[in-house]
């Protein structure tokens, strides 16, 4: 088709619901300008600017939930329709709904807390690049895009925006071999996974004729569909799942995680473990939500369930043998991806009879906890070097009792001990899994939770019990940003555990919008 002749009119763009994304992006650009204008000054202005931008973006989302400032009902925008009725072709380049906004909020909060404790850490590590802040912000924008679209090309766009910034960030400490290794490994494997995703998108496009993921149920519902298209579709779905599975660190595609988490600067690791994972699961949920046709569900849910069990088991078992705190949390993040996948499988199996609140709640609790843990772990960076072995943390409770106490809360939440958000999250996943007759998944989750307690306790012992070796322990003075970050995370984790129903209500995902017609009107499902 010659676009020059086509009667293209600009699609009606509703800017308001995209404001959080735009604000975060523009904040990144402004931060870059500040760095450009004063490259020899301290980064304090950049830090304040990014924190302010993120705060405004987050406040807008919360305001929209409580007071509907965007004046927009949940809907899809940017629908450029190439023929067909609106229901068929759909929009979906940008989706404005509670799920997308929740994941966006998790990403904004993760970025905010990461930036809070970044400046002190980066100065101690002697990597005080002002470029760090714009890169983190743009990476967060990529994640936000991934969580609020239903078009495969936009998924890809968001994924690349997220990843390319992260590749640079992982290698930010270019003086250190481990950081270089992390960057190269992440870049090569990430590019490989991206090509899988892209090829999967191509196959799905070939089968359905559209890059919109709701083309898949449309094709499957079509009685006279070409049987070859269904086979191409299976291959395409597999490849897209591999692409997202890589970002979410699911087990056959998890190899990069520990090395990259260990080698990257701790603040970047924190953002990767929380933000990148939230974005990947946001995209995964959107995609899995589109493959709920019986033929596809029979093929994919058992596979995803097995991947979930593998992910949590492998993550936990290898974590038991680690001596490096960052690697332990890295493997723990793999295990948590497995727990999350159980929630996603149960949600997909229910086909709309249970809400997405479990996934989002667990994602939020996990993200906040992990970032808090990394904030405390970042304290061993001093005068250009950083020790992340467990022994390096001995005696932290003497030097920074508050941070050590926060660490206990984080480890309790990751292990799933009662008054914390992690406990309630696991409980919700149990409930969903049992509700959908996935008893074996629930049992696997339980066994793995018990396993994981062992290595979380090991970190707690290293931080709070073991006596320091004089030669070893070397801690930076906890600065205000780091203390605020750890304190806020600890408070939030406890609050999520205590005020669970309030949190769930604010997110508004507990009850699906329409449970009766869910199987028919797929357009309403996230």
């Amino acid at each position: 088709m010659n676009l020059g002749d086509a009667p293209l009119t600009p699609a009606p763009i509703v800017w308001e619901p995209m404001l959080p994304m735009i604000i975060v992006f523009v904040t990144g650009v402004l931060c870059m300008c500040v760095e450009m204008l004063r490259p020899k000054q301290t980064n304090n202005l950049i830090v304040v600017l990014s924190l302010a931008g993120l705060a405004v973006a987050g406040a807008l989302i919360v305001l929209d939930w409580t007071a509907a400032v965007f004046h927009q009902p949940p809907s899809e925008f940017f629908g450029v329709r190439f023929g067909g009725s609106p229901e068929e072709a759909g929009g979906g380049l940008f989706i404005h709904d509670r799920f997308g906004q929740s994941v966006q909020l998790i990403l904004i909060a993760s970025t905010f807390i990461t930036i809070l404790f970044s400046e002190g850490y980066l100065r101690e590590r002697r990597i005080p690049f002002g470029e760090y802040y714009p890169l983190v912000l743009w990476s967060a924008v990529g994640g936000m895009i991934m969580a609020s679209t239903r078009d495969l090309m936009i998924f890809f766009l968001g994924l690349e925006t997220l990843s390319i910034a992260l590749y640079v960030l992982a290698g930010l400490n270019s003086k250190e071999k481990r950081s270089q290794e992390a960057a190269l490994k992440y870049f090569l494997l990430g590019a490989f996974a991206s090509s899988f995703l892209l090829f999967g998108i191509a196959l799905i496009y070939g089968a359905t004729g559209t890059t919109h993921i709701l083309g898949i149920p449309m094709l499957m519902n079509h009685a006279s569909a070409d049987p070859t298209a269904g086979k191409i579709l299976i291959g395409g779905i597999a490849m897209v799942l591999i692409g997202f599975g890589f970002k979410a660190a699911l087990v056959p595609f998890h190899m990069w995680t520990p090395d990259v988490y260990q080698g990257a600067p701790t603040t970047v690791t924190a953002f990767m473990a929380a933000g990148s994972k939230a974005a990947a699961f946001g995209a995964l949920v959107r995609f899995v939500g589109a493959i709920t046709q019986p033929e596809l569900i029979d093929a994919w849910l058992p596979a995803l369930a097995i991947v979930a069990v593998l992910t949590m088991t492998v993550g936990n078992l290898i974590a038991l043998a680690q001596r490096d705190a960052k690697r332990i949390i890295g493997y723990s993040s793999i295990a948590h991806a497995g727990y999350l996948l159980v929630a996603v499988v149960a949600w997909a199996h229910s086909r709309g009879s249970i809400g997405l609140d479990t996934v989002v709640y667990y994602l939020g609790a996990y993200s906040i906890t992990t970032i808090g843990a990394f904030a405390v772990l970042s304290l061993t960076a001093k005068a250009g070097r950083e020790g992340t072995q467990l022994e390096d943390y001995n005696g932290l409770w003497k030097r920074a009792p508050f941070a050590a106490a926060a660490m206990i809360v984080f480890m309790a939440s990751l292990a799933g001990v009662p008054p914390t958000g992690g406990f309630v999250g696991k409980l919700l996943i149990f409930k969903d899994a049992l509700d959908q007759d996935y008893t074996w998944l629930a049992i696997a989750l339980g066994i793995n939770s018990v396993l994981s307690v062992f290595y979380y306790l090991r970190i707690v012992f290293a931080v709070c019990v073991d006596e320091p070796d004089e030669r070893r322990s070397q801690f930076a003075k906890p600065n205000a940003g780091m203390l605020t970050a750890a304190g806020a995370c600890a408070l939030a984790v406890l609050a999520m555990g205590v005020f669970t129903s309030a949190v769930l209500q604010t997110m508004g995902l507990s009850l699906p919008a329409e449970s009766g017609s869910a199987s028919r009107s797929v357009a309403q499902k996230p």
Partner: protein
Amino acid sequence: MPGSIGCPLAHLGPRFCGKIVEPVNPYLPIFVMIALASVICIAMVSLSWLLGPKKSTAYKESPFECGVAPTGSAHERFPIKFYLTAMLFILFDIEVVFLWSWMTVFRGWVEKGTPSAMYSFWAVMVYMVLWFLGDFYVLRSGALEWEESKTLHPEKFGKAVDEEAPYVQPVSEDAA
């Protein structure tokens, strides 16, 4: 059109000019060429290998470098600046490709008075502003300067840290 262009093989008789009944595979000459070339190459290499005298010395075994005895290693390090310049050039290329493809469509839209013309113009302007910011950033951070990078300013470390400990190279713990 046998008559319109003079056939270069006309002097060989009518068989070679426009009178061929069986169509010849147009790739046949290429295959013949490849076969001839490989036969000649294989013959030359293998014959000289079979028949030639073999008296190898250390000097003969060394790599040929313009007739001069080679010095140093081939695994030489060269400045990363080359890569940086190449990457910036690729980015510039991509920018031009985007602009070009937009421009070809935009022209048609302006001539027809399509309502999207002005809209797309402003969209591209936003894109260009971001590009210019990036270009300024490249200039400002000294990525195009051909000397040592000045990106890492010690001034950024802040006072408190700078005084008690000067910059130390982080120790790689690979051995541990």
